[in-house]
C-alpha cells in the first residue's frame, strides 16, 4: 500500500530524488506533513501546483488517496 510522489524541477533537488514511494495516507496534507520538514515546506510553497494521477488539483484536502496513486509536485514552469 503506497503512494508514488514525483518531484519536478528544483523540488527534485530538495527531495534528493525525482521519485519517492510513501505509505498511503488519506490526504495530500497528511502526506506532506509526514515528509522531512524542509521538503514539506518547499512543497507547500504557494506557486507549487499539484497533480494526482496526471490531473491538476486545486485543493490539497480534496482528493481521497488510494494505493498506487501518483502525486506530482510542480514548481513554476520555466517554459519551453
Amino acid at each position: 500500500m503506497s503512494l508514488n510522489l514525483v518531484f519536478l524541477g528544483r523540488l527534485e533537488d530538495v527531495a534528493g530524488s525525482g521519485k519517492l514511494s510513501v505509505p498511503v495516507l488519506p490526504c495530500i496534507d497528511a502526506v506532506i506533513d509526514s515528509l522531512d520538514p524542509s521538503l514539506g515546506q518547499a512543497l507547500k510553497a504557494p506557486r507549487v501546483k499539484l497533480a494526482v494521477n496526471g490531473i491538476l488539483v486545486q485543493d490539497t484536502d480534496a482528493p481521497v488517496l488510494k494505493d498506487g496513486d501518483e502525486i506530482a509536485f510542480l514548481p513554476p514552469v520555466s517554459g519551453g
Partner: protein
Amino acid sequence: MRRFSRTATRSPSCRRYRAAEAVGCERHSDVRLLTSPFAPAEEIASFARAKPESGGVVSFIGQVREGDGVEALELQHYEPLTLPAMEKLAVSVHRRWDLDGVLIVHRSGVMVPGDPIVLVAAAARHRRDAFAAADFAMDHLKSESWFWKREKRGGEWHWIEPREQDFDDIARWG
C-alpha cells in the same frame, strides 16, 4: 515519437476550406515531444511539401544559446501533462486562424549549445495567418508549457526561473 491523432474540434478554417473533404484539423496538426535530437530543416521541408495549397509557411526554431559559460541545457517534462498541453495548444491555434497545418516539435532531455530545442511551423493560404499563428504558439510554449529547465555552468546545474518577459509576451494575445 507520437503523431497527434486524438479527436479535436474542427476549426472554422477547416470548415471553410475542407468541408467537402470532411476531414478534421487533427489531421493537419503534428505535435511531438522528443527525447532525442531532431533535424528542423528536414521537418520544415516535409511539412511544406505536404501543404502545396498553402501560400505561406512560417517556421521558428529555438536553439540552445551559446555563451554565458553554458555547457548544457536540460529540459524536464512530466509525461501526463506536457504532451497533452502541447496538443491542446495546437487545437487552439487552429481555431484562432485560417490554417492548413500546424507543426510543433519539442525536445526534452539534455542538449548542448546549438542543439535545436523547439520547432513551430504554421501553414496557411496567406502569410499573415501563418506569422501570427507561429508567434502565438511560441509565446504560449515559452510561458505556459510544462517544462522545467536547468543549465550546466562550470560543471554545476542551475535551475532556471520563469522570465517576466515571457509573461509580458503572452499578455499581448489577450
